[in-house]
């Protein structure tokens, strides 16, 4: 993985691709949320990521671009997704620092920092049926892919995130509005895990 590099332009491409995927899956995300939540996840994430792209991904460094994008999400999304995805990008940006290029190791460390930020904000644990259940396997796959070519590690991460997303179907929700349903939350795929899998998938197609 040591030869891997993420330039500032690639990082911006990643965020744009995430925005595109969120827009493409907007109705699906909202329908998943209607089943176990409050039917706004697709609408909210699309509004937020469209705002991030519309704001022009300003900044001369990875840290600056991510901080700006994170604050835009916090300020436009609302709900739980705004603070969670916003915190992910803010922490990612702090860990990445004021650089114009990340090597693979630093990219993975920034992903870990973002994930830790999500946990700090949302207090989610494994198998609570949240975005954590897709994002964490993705980050873990990156961390265990140190010996792989960077592109292979990214694709393995996207596959692991998809698998984590699928595994939420059988989980009993213990966080967020879905937790109010108790047993009735079983059998439904978590919308937050679904959007988190898109974030990792977008990384695999733009950074590899």
């Amino acid at each position: 993985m040591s030869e891997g590099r993420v330039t500032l332009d690639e990082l911006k491409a990643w965020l744009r691709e995430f925005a595109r995927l969120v827009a493409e899956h907007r109705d699906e995300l909202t329908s998943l949320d209607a089943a176990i939540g409050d039917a706004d996840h697709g609408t909210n994430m699309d509004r937020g990521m469209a705002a991030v792209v519309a704001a022009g991904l300003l900044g001369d460094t990875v840290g600056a671009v991510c901080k700006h994008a994170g604050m835009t999400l916090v300020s436009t999304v609302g709900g739980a997704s705004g603070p969670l995805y916003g915190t992910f990008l803010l922490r990612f940006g702090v860990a990445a620092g004021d650089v114009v290029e990340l090597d693979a190791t630093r990219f993975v460390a920034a992903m870990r920092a973002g994930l830790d930020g999500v946990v700090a904000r949302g207090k989610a644990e494994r198998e609570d049926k949240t975005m954590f259940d897709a994002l964490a396997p993705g980050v873990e796959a990156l961390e265990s892919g140190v010996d792989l070519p960077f592109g292979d590690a990214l694709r393995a991460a996207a596959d692991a995130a998809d698998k984590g997303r699928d595994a939420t179907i059988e989980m009993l929700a213990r966080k967020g509005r879905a937790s109010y349903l108790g047993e009735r939350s079983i059998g439904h795929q978590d919308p937050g895990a679904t959007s988190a899998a898109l974030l990792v998938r977008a990384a695999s197609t733009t950074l590899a």
Partner: protein
Amino acid sequence: MKKLINEPPDVVAEALLGVEAAHPDLRVDHQHKIVYRGDAPRPGKVGLISGGGSGHEPMHAGLVGLGMLDAACCGEVFTSPVPDQMLEATKVVDGGAGVLHIVKNYTGDVMNFDMAAELAAAETGVEVTSVVTNDDVAVQDSTWTAGRRGVGVTVLLEKIAGAAAEEGRSLKEVADVAREVNGNGRSMGIALTSCTVPANGKPTFELGETEMEVGVGIHGEPGRSRAPLAPAKEIAALLVEPILADLPFGRGDRVIAFVNGLGGTPLIELYLMNNEVAKILSANGIMVSRSLVGSYITSLDMAGCSVTVLRVTEELLRLWDAPVRTPALRWGI
């Protein structure tokens, strides 16, 4: 979907223009989607702000005014407001005595208010205390859920804490009163229909002609169980009994009984329900000192109701009776 709207994304902004036109004693910040008391900040008075997703009107914007909230932060429909809004409202309403954040216990609301309080601490010298409401007995209060939802008690708390602030009490004292209200109130609701979020255009869940959703929240999130439709007296028992058992309420308790419409139920049915609720309370030796009947914390066009029972002391009753002048609650003036 049949709604009196123009474009779904404009619903909240256009409704706030209507609020402004109807209530000249309120001030509306359209950029931040905040409704203020016209005379905020009041020097020396603790500022009270609340907020949440829109679609629950009159809560919270209709509860802004003398004796209640100083500001309400309006999110998108069923989506909590963002930290920028609460930060701005906190700065504006601070009269030097600090600001109380009244937060309903939903994951998003709690996170956004938390971020706002962190930003307020970092950027301003304003002292902020948060009180979270979580009165819904339909949800198990356990570490395995997001905890109980904040529902009907929020309205009663904003009135009573608002009166305490109006009397010039300190931030700590106002927060203590607010926590006392939350600790002594319990609620539960049922839905006869789903609601339709404007941006989605179709009902959030499907409910058959002869079904009802028991233990429903205020965002169209499904409840704990689905049951066959029953007569009002049986529905009242279904709601009141878990409430009484939970606190628990006892014989001789004095209470405020609040029968709340969820948006699509006519007042005549709410009064009918109030009669059934009163009978059950009376049969349990509980004295209804005050009643509130009407639609105050709603879920868009959902038909159904919630019941809130709040155990009160003489002092809480006195604060309840204190003057209030807001679009939705107004007496004693």
